[in-house]
């Protein structure tokens, strides 16, 4: 397909559209990390005593931990003392009381990103919590949610207003000892989202958080905690963007989901952090720990992710299926381009009887990128009748990229059944020929084929996100035909 190469290379220049920087006054900590920084952070957040202790314990343990090196990733060592651990838009008074008090510059930023924070009740119907650098700046639709009994607020507010819930569940799914990045997050997390859905409540609207890194040399460490009480249902979406910068920025988040009896949580992510330029310069280092505990009987957690951004993605949304008949699902599309590296997958740990899980992973690598699926499916000795089905497919676009699959399957129960299959292929000449014959240009043809390849995952996304995801894929793929 040498002839198409040139046309395509001209198209390659399409840039990351969320790469702008917002000029805004900020309070930023000096780079560096020590116990004083954590104490200052905790003080700014007006946290109760137990939180500070919790953070310090995590910090002390973190100092003894080693950065993991088992992933199929190559990057320069991160200097944790050159990062600022807190950056927040300056505020005139204490907290904004309503959206009118929020800095208009900030609101414009979110408008630019296509996330109208002003409640457009008739149209939107999605409650948004916006996190700008280290803090949550606005949460919409608080009132109707409160009427249903759903708590949806920033985690800083939750620590102050619902300490008993936070104390009970924070760190219960991802303890600070879990891994290096989760430990760091526990010590310095600055904000995030907290959701509690009470017994029997079906959350009346989609909840959503939008993360934005703006300041330079800062890390973003947010923490999300979602608790679905007995018989409740919630669907949660998150999206992320960051400005274009030459340096790498660290993002180390922790997400914990707790599903009690008969509860259901649907968690969708469209991750579009700045991926770096075509020479592999800059971009976000995304080291994220996401885990769900299906504690209750018949509980269900479903992870859907579309990963198109970040220079490095290290992320394994997992389910611990403890309750009988609990269900875990993982649907993922990971697209890497240029010099992006992704090492992502899931863990399904079956402990309870008749638990079942499904894993559908689609990896697409283009340019000089590397895309890894790494997963674990484990059946404990008491997982009678447990089932797993795994399918991971890779699509290679170009001959300088890599696609890898490292699935771990461990079974200790004879009645458990696991099926795993994986394929790797490229966009075939026949497919391209068929499209081009019908007058479709190579760009669109690849886009169509890739969209078809990912369809199984996209159909799991809420409608608004599915549209965004499809578009993202088109943008990211542009110029990769060849």
């Amino acid at each position, binding site marked *: 397909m040498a002839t198409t190469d040139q046309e395509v290379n001209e198209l390659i220049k399409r840039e990351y559209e969320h790469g702008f920087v917002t000029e805004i006054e900020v309070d930023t900590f000096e780079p560096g990390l020590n116990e004083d920084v954590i104490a200052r952070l905790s003080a700014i957040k007006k946290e109760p005593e137990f939180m500070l202790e919790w953070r310090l314990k995590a910090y002390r343990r973190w100092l003894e931990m080693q950065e993991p090196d088992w992933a199929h990733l190559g990057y320069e060592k991160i200097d944790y003392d050159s990062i600022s651990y807190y950056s927040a838009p300056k505020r005139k008074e204490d907290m904004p009381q309503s959206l009118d008090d929020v800095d208009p510059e900030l609101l414009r930023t979110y408008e630019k990103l296509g996330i109208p924070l002003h409640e457009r009740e008739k149209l939107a119907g999605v409650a948004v919590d916006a996190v700008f650098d280290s803090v949550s700046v606005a949460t919409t639709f608080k009132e109707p949610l409160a009427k249903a009994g759903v708590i949806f607020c920033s985690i800083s507010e939750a620590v102050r207003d619902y300490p008993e819930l936070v104390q009970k569940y924070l760190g219960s799914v991802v303890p600070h000892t879990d891994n290096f990045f989760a430990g760091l997050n526990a010590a310095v997390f600055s904000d995030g989202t907290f959701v509690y859905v009470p017994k029997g409540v079906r959350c009346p609207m989609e909840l959503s958080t939008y993360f934005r890194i703006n300041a330079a040399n800062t890390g973003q460490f947010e923490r999300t905690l979602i608790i679905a009480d007995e018989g409740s249902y919630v669907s949660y979406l998150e999206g992320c963007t960051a400005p274009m910068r030459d340096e790498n920025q660290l993002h180390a988040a922790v997400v914990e989901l707790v599903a009690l009896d008969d509860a259901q949580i649907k968690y969708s992510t469209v991750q579009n952090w700045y991926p770096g330029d075509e020479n592999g310069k800059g971009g976000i280092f995304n080291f994220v720990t996401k885990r769900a505990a299906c504690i209750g009987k018949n509980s269900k957690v479903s992870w859907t992710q579309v990963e198109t951004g970040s220079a490095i993605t290290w992320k394994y949304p997992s389910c611990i299926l403890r309750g009988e008949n609990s269900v875990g699902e993982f649907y993922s599309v990971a697209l890497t381009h240029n010099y992006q590296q992704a090492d992502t997958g899931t863990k399904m740990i079956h402990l309870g009887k008749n638990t079942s899980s499904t894993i559908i992973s689609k990896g697409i690598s283009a340019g000089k990128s590397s895309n890894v699926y790494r997963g674990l499916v484990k059946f404990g000795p008491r997982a009678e009748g447990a089932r797993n089905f795994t399918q991971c497919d890779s699509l290679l676009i*170009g001959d300088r990229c890599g696609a890898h699959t490292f699935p771990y*399957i461990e079974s200790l129960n004879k009645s458990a059944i696991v099926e795993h299959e994986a394929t790797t292929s490229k966009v075939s000449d026949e497919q391209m020929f068929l499209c081009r014959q019908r007058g479709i240009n190579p760009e669109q043809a690849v886009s169509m084929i890739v969209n078809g390849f990912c369809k199984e995952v996209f159909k799991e996304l809420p409608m608004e996100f599915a549209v965004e995801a499809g578009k993202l894929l088109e943008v990211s793929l542009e110029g990769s035909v060849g």
Partner: protein
Amino acid sequence: MKPASTLSTAFLHPAGQALPEPLLALRKQRGAALVDMPLPTRKTENWKYSSKYLKLTDEMAVSLPTAGKTGSALAVPGYKVVFINGVMIPEASEYPDLNNILIQRFGDLSDAEASELAERLDTTLNTKEVQFAGLNSARFEDGLMIRLNPDAVLDQPLFIIHEVTADASGSAFPRIFVDAGRNSQITLVEEYISSGQEAVLVNSVTEFTLAEGANVTNIRLSMGGENVQHIGATGVTQQRSSRFESHCVGFGGPLRRHDLQVRMEGEGAECKLNGVVVTQGTQHYDNHTTIEHVAAHCDSEETYRNIAADKSHAVFNGRIHIHQDAQKSNANMNNKNLLLSTGAEIDTKPELEIYADDVKCAHGATIGQLDEESLFYLVSRGIDRREANVLLTMAFINELVAQIPVEAVRDTVQIRLNQFFDQAFQEA
């Protein structure tokens, strides 16, 4: 005993007997490298599931006593080379003296031949990944070199039988090197058996280099010895249009480990790897395979089946690595596992590492139990439950057993399988 932390302190073997100078020099050089080679632990990725079975004691750090012409290996008809307690027994061995096929003990090689061999040993295996091949290189005491000149064809399978008869603790480090010339053909059967009662370590390495158009079939039977920890490695490099076929049949033991690494370096090479593993009691078996597609237009096909009964533990780790220039590669890996009891454990990791885009690669893995409906079908037709279990279990692996190209080997395997069925499905 205090556990040794590196392989170098784990085994202080006496110098090899009567080896030519170049091979002694190689041993010494590899021995020095062992200092940096830690003993595998649970944190060592490629020993994650198996390190707990590795039990090395001071008593094993000596050579096994020489026994002479004894043991059951003698009964095998046809061409054979017999190693007893790690040492080749020429008077028990029978093989033709041909001018185009050289079969020679390392100790009988001239210095010139030995130095050529020394340069080629270890070239087929990545000793960073297969640490114990490095240990063998530093410790081998005896070995066999087989060289096939271009177009040479060995008319019958050659059996290489490694038997442990000693009633004493110790270790053996046998080494085989096969140099298959252009368009040559050989079928090599390796059989590991034991009748000893004391804890023994067998650390074997077999290497194959296939020149253009060579056709090699390797059958490997790891048959037993309840006290033998067997860590083996097989390394293969393939040139243009060569074909390598491997049939590995393994029965469990206190520790069984086989690393099989195939590198296809010439275009049009083809390899087929079959494996069957059966474990019972508290036995263990661990297969690690790597297929590297270095050149374009190569095909690989891998099929492994594991059966674990009682409280045994079977591990499979298969890796397919497609290099950047290996366009038009075809690779297929399939691993199916049968878990016969809760309490047994099966771990599998089928890996794909792909750097070329115009390839067709697929892998599949399953773990499950015998299908209740099939069992019911058989039982409803008057077949008793035990018999039905045996039929279905045999059916699970028969496809692979039937492919073993040497009838005598198929028979040996079937006898062992029948013993296994008798023990695994006792109650009706």
